[in-house]
């Protein structure tokens, strides 16, 4: 589905890897390793300095950029909701393409385990966890083929983070969707991912199944990272 070929963009250097359809990939590594930069490259919020990124066999620069972003949904670390109601936020993406149908609203809230009474609630009255759920529903509303998650629980307290993780777990199981997620939380990585990419010093240090690379790390830097 994705192929990165010798992609560089500060701090990333010469990254080459492939992500297959429906894979659940966890990106991890220390702060400043370039994990978020990498996520932005996937849906062209950022441009590589060199190298080529392919999506479904075609360089991503050959896709109309807005349509590409619709297909590759991104959930940011903070929810960054738009002023207005939950419904205003959820329908934002599909409305841009004239594809919004009101009947989808309740289903989307169900996905993120929010009651339908929330639809007309002003987002300024939501808790941190609720905001992140709405942000997730807003991305899902575009029916993306790929879901990119940039540490979606890092700004939440332990209990709320667990709730969001449950929502994500449910979504991943129910929907055939490719997922690339950045997380520092190794137990979360075990629960949600099936493949891990460890990035440090701008390069891909280790690539393998989650149990493999977390339980039997071959790389010294990864071992140190796991031991924390």
């Amino acid at each position, binding site marked *: 589905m994705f192929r990165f070929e010798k992609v560089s963009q500060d701090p990333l250097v010469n990254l080459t890897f492939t992500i297959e359809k429906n894979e659940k990939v966890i990106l991890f590594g220390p702060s400043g390793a370039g994990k978020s930069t990498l996520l932005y490259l996937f849906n062209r919020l950022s*441009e590589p300095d060199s190298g080529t990124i392919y999506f479904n066999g075609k360089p991503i620069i050959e896709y109309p950029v807005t349509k590409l*972003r619709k297909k590759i949904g991104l959930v940011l670390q903070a929810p960054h909701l738009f002023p207005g109601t939950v419904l205003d936020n959820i329908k934002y993406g599909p409305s841009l393409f004239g594809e919004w149908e009101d009947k989808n609203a309740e289903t989307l809230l169900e996905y993120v385990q929010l009651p339908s009474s929330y639809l007309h609630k002003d987002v300024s009255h939501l808790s941190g966890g609720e905001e992140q759920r709405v942000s997730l529903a807003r991305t899902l509303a575009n029916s993306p083929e790929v879901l990119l998650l940039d540490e979606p629980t890092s700004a939440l307290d332990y209990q709320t983070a667990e709730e969001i993780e449950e929502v994500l777990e449910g979504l991943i199981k129910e929907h055939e969707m490719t997922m690339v997620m950045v997380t520092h939380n190794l137990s979360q990585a075990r629960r949600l991912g099936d493949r891990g990419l460890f990035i440090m010093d701008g390069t891909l240090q280790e690539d393998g199944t989650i149990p493999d690379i977390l339980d039997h790390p071959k790389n010294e830097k990864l071992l140190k990272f796991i031991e924390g």
Partner: protein
Amino acid sequence: MNALTPEVSNQSLFFLIIFVIIPLTLSYFYQLGLGKNVLWSAFRGTVQLFAIGYILTYLFDLPASVGIPLMVGIMIIIATFHARQKGKELPYVLPVIFVSLLFVEGSVLTMWLVFDMVQFRPSEVIPMSGMVIGNSMVAMGLALERMKSEFRDNNGRLLAALSLGAEPKQASHLIVQRTLHAALIPNVDRLKTIGLVQLPGMMTGLILGGVEPVMAIKYQLVISLSIFSSVSISAMFVTLAMYRYFFNKNKQLIEPGD
């Protein structure tokens, strides 16, 4: 209009120094460190005003077809460079401001002359144009400053909108809205309270000069509404022309000037 009857003598003017001494004393006692600034501003303001007084006297004696374009041109150039300071990192900000001011002044002047609100005389057109250009300059500066801070503060929201497939225009809709609101609201408020909270400067001047209050009000209405509309147009012009420079051709958010 009647000629100005009361005259402020040079001796009376000298006692204005008291109004400078008051903030100077305050600055000294409260160690505000504004002493030099207060003195320099007062001195500079006085020199500027006297200089413009002599220049205006000279211009008013020139034929209108020479004096008006000359002074209005100078005012537009100075206002352009001044407003540009608020957004100098943005590309093409100078021509955008210049064209906006030219357009606004041109339209307002045409309206004044076509509908016989103002005579094509330097003594009428120059001071009134100065008010229109000056207020537009401030509004454009405000709009540029506000737009930059809105883009900075809403970086996450903009990324979220772009990531959902929004065009730069759609992603920055809220920012454009807030910028225009911030640039226009002081003007709306001023118009709302006109005559209630303060008598506007031009009207006060005319009344002091011996003009009937109702006649002064008519002039004030012409200038207030002209300013109101020119400020709206110039703020809108500069905002709509400049927001796109916060994005590159790949519809990615950038730091202008980088």
